[in-house]
């Protein structure tokens, strides 16, 4: 180890090949002949599986090959001489192809000399361009295996059958590995090149093992249990099996045992060697541990998610991180995260001791690790790390010197990163400031759920404690939640009110709501507003009241001016703007809500125009404060009136039910008429459609219209006093369609956009006539969820519902992969200071970012509205 050159060697190329038996013996430090590992004294047995020439793992022993101690010795290979050759499972496909492509007698490749030369030339050509020769090689294999008579010795070629995982049958008779090996040995070097193998590095007969390399002990360390008993690695167990069978084989053969027994043992040896390489090959039972657990052999170590490649090499793990379940806390700011005390006591922030903080740090150290906020470690200037314990804490606090570092526990105000997977956009990781709280979950303001796409049905999130001053500064400036309220995706706020926030403010601000002083103060209690404006009026009994709009105005910045249509806007032909009879035109003047209802279009996540304006005109800090105040006000507002939904809210009056049935009956008749004209061949096909498509489309259209009509009927009987309507109209949750389905009619169930047609021949269920085109035979559900579905309707509904589930499952995986490819292709592009987009080589991609050089985050929902706004604010009136 001492003569290792100081400069690492540069890798110029990597060559893959097969290990020849000669090479295996050459690199082996010892042959292994006994299946035993340790003797009675616990020392490794010579030429056993734990031979000290294979390296050492026990402290105190020295390796006999390199005389290194445990930890220094990298380990050395040994080898087992197999009594009879066996097939290497990893190469079974190549062996099969090669057997089929070579002559059974003369072993030459079954190609005419000219053809062979053609492939050889092509191969050289492909290599020169640097392409993969796989396609050409497969073609050569295919051509060769087609030949039935050897062009060299005229031998007729027999059919080779491959039986998983390691058996080859020629005309029904088993080929022994010895026979295969003999054939491969005779293949001339030149012929091997045709199938893409390099005869110097990979002779095909090396795919049939005669010598088995034994991996070093460092690869398969045994562990000593608490009871002092040794427990061997799975690989060692497998090697024991191989050696045992190998020995038995030899003894039997030397004793001249009958052929049958020899064959059995050969097969057994093959089995053990196969499972040593791969214990999950199909066709044979996996080798099991005594406990019944399948053994983890070589290929299991590498393969799959937890394998060496994906799990150990590409898998990255970090320190100073925490993960736990999340739960909501509306009393936290959106910039905060509630950190459970047990986590705060483990994660630390390094603080360099200076004259200004020494007294404070001494307190932390004196608190020790048990009293929060304490310190867990102290780093001396010489780099020594001392754990703070109850024994040494006072001592350490006294010894504290400038330049030392104290690793103090997380406390309120620390900047940490917070993340939820899948991290699909930059808002999936944001910086929050810590608020240490009791209990064991991370707490976050429900308004920050949309950017993380989080909910509280058991979601877990990760937290990272930043360890340098630079990273904390950077995180605070760039990654804090308030800096990420506006999304670059569409130039609007991604954070805002959700669910109850929207319905709460909707209830509060709709029309003239009379609120008495007590309620008003209660609602504003959590915000920093301590005084109310002059009341809107006085009740008959002389008590002053305020309107909901006034209350909401209290949390608006004083210089805010904006106007827009609310979510409840019914898009009349001519907008009456401020005079909207629906109170659906929001006007905010000097921070005062003059007109309109606050709903999703005003404060919702993704849509909220109020946050948008506040952030763009005043700043992110004001925006964050507004969202904090708004969510807390909304929660209190909704609690004042309450909002609940029961089955009775789906009730519709009798006459509505009759009307609905009438509509459905009429639609049914219309469908029957369509069918009749179809059967009488009177139906005119739509342009570009067949007759069958036409009738399907017209029926779908009729029924769709009928469902919408029933929805309108139900809707007209449910006003804004209905909680479901409130939620749907304000954009808080659900849609009018959901309500229609609950109260009036569920409608057509569809599979791939068509009516349901699958099932039996000519009909969907045995309850219908063959060829029935009627609405109920093809999945039209007349019933509402409230009235209940009949059995056939229920079944069709299940069919339609399942498609939805399958769709989402398939879509997420596909779009995820699509996005991954896109991100990988674009990740190194960068917008330069001159607004050009360039890759890492400096090659231009766009001459001006987005062709207009506009940062979408700063744009108004990607619309060029800024200039109009400037004109408006200068002229202080609408300018056309």
């Amino acid at each position, binding site marked *: 180890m001492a003569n290792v050159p100081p400069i690492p060697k540069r890798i110029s190329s990597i060559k893959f090949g097969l290990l020849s038996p000669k090479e295996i013996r050459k690199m082996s430090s010892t042959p292994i002949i006994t299946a035993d590992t340790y003797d009675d004294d616990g020392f490794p047995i010579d030429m056993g599986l734990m031979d000290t020439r294979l390296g050492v793992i026990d402290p105190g022993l020295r390796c006999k090959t390199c005389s290194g101690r445990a930890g220094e010795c990298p380990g050395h290979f040994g080898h087992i001489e197999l009594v009879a050759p066996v097939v290497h499972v990893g190469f079974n496909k190549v062996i099969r192809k090669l057997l089929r492509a070579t002559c059974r007698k003369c072993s030459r490749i079954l190609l005419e000399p000219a053809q062979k030369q053609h492939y050889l030339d092509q191969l050289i050509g492909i290599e020169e361009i640097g392409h993969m020769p796989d396609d050409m090689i497969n073609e050569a294999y295919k051509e060769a295996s087609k030949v039935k008579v050897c062009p060299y010795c005229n031998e007729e070629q027999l059919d080779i059958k491959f039986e998983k995982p390691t058996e080859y049958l020629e005309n029904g008779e088993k080929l022994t590995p010895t026979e295969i090996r003999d054939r491969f040995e005779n293949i001339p070097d030149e012929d091997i090149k045709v199938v893409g193998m390099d005869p110097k590095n990979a002779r095909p007969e090396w795919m049939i093992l005669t010598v088995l390399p034994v991996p070093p002990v460092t690869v398969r360390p045994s562990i000593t249990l608490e009871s002092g008993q040794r427990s061997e690695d799975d690989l060692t167990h497998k090697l024991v099996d191989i050696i045992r069978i190998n020995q038995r084989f030899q003894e039997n053969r030397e004793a001249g045992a009958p052929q049958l027994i020899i064959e059995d043992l050969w097969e057994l040896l093959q089995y053990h060697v196969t499972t040593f390489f791969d214990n999950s090959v199909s066709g044979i039972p996996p080798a099991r541990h005594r406990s019944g657990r399948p053994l983890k052999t070589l290929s299991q170590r590498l393969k799959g998610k937890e394998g060496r490649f994906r799990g150990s090499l590409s898998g990255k793990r970090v320190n100073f991180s925490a993960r736990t379940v999340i739960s909501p806390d509306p009393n936290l700011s959106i910039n905060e995260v509630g950190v459970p005390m047990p986590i705060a006591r483990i994660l630390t922030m390094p603080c360099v001791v200076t004259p200004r903080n020494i007294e404070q740090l001494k307190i932390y150290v004196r608190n020790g690790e048990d009293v929060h906020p304490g310190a867990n470690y102290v780093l001396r200037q010489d780099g020594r790390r001392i754990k703070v314990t109850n024994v040494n804490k006072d001592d350490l606090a006294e010894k504290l010197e400038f330049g030392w570092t104290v690793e103090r526990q997380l406390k309120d105000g620390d900047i940490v990163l917070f993340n939820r997977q899948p991290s699909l956009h930059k808002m999936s990781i944001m910086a929050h400031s810590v608020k240490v709280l009791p209990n064991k979950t991370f707490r976050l303001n429900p308004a920050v759920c949309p950017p993380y796409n989080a909910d509280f049905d058991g979601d877990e999130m990760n937290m990272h404690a930043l360890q340098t001053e630079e990273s904390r500064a950077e995180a605070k400036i760039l990654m804090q939640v308030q800096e990420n309220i506006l999304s670059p995706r569409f130039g609007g706020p991604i954070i805002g009110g959700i669910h109850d926030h929207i319905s709460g403010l909707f209830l509060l601000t709709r029309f003239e709501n009379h609120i008495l002083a007590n309620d008003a103060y209660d609602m504003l209690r959590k915000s920093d507003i301590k005084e109310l404006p002059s009341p809107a009026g006085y009740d008959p009994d002389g008590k002053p009241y305020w309107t909901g709009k006034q209350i909401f105005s209290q949390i608006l910045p004083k210089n805010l001016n904006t106007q827009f249509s609310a979510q409840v806007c019914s898009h009349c032909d001519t907008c009456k703007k401020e005079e909207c009879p629906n109170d659906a035109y929001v006007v905010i003047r000097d921070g005062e809500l003059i007109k309109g209802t606050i709903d999703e279009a005003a404060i919702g996540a993704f849509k909220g125009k109020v946050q948008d304006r506040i952030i763009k005109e005043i700043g992110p800090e004001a925006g964050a404060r507004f969202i904090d105040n708004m969510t807390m006000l909304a929660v209190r507002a909704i609690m004042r009136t309450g909002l609940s939904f029961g089955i009775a809210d789906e009730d519709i009056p009798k006459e509505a039910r009759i009307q609905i049935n009438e509509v459905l009956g009429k639609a049914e008749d219309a469908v029957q008429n369509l069918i009749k004209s179809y059967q009488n061949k009177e139906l005119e096909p739509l342009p570009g459609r067949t007759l069958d498509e036409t009738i399907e489309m017209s029926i779908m259209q009729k029924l769709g219209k009928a469902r919408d009509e029933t929805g309108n009927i139900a809707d007209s009987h449910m006003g804004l006093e209905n909680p479901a309507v409130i939620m749907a109209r304000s954009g808080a949750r659900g849609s009018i369609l959901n309500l229609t389905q609950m109260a009036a009619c569920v409608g057509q169930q569809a599979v791939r956009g068509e009516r349901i047609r699958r099932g039996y021949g000519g009909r969907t269920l045995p309850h219908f006539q063959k060829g029935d085109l009627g609405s109920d035979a093809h999945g039209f559900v007349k019933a509402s969820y409230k009235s209940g579905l009949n059995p056939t309707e229920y079944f069709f509904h299940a069919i339609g519902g399942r498609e939805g589930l399958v769709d989402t499952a398939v879509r997420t995986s596909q779009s995820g992969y699509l996005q991954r490819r896109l991100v990988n292709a674009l990740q190194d592009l960068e917008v330069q200071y001159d607004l050009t987009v360039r890759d890492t080589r400096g090659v*231009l991609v766009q001459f001006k970012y987005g062709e207009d050089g506009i940062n979408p985050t700063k744009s108004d929902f990607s619309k060029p509205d800024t200039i109009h706004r400037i004109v408006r604010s200068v002229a202080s009136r609408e300018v056309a």
Partner: protein
Amino acid sequence: MTKFSLLDHESVPKHEIMPEGELKSVLSKYSIEKEQLPKIKVQDPVSKEIGAVVGDVVKITRKSQTAGEAEYYRLVIE
């Protein structure tokens, strides 16, 4: 068959070979070498149409959703 020009199609933007002087000012504006421009092949139908040769720079004026009109420059390669 009547001969028609590719450039007459509405979805083919305006392509023209850049004169030396204009090219120089563009390269100095972005302070880049010619090789750092995006590329277009000589075999490209539109390069053939305007008769560009390897080493020329083609100026493309396209309609843009965001900016109304945007200019691109591509180096002709073989």
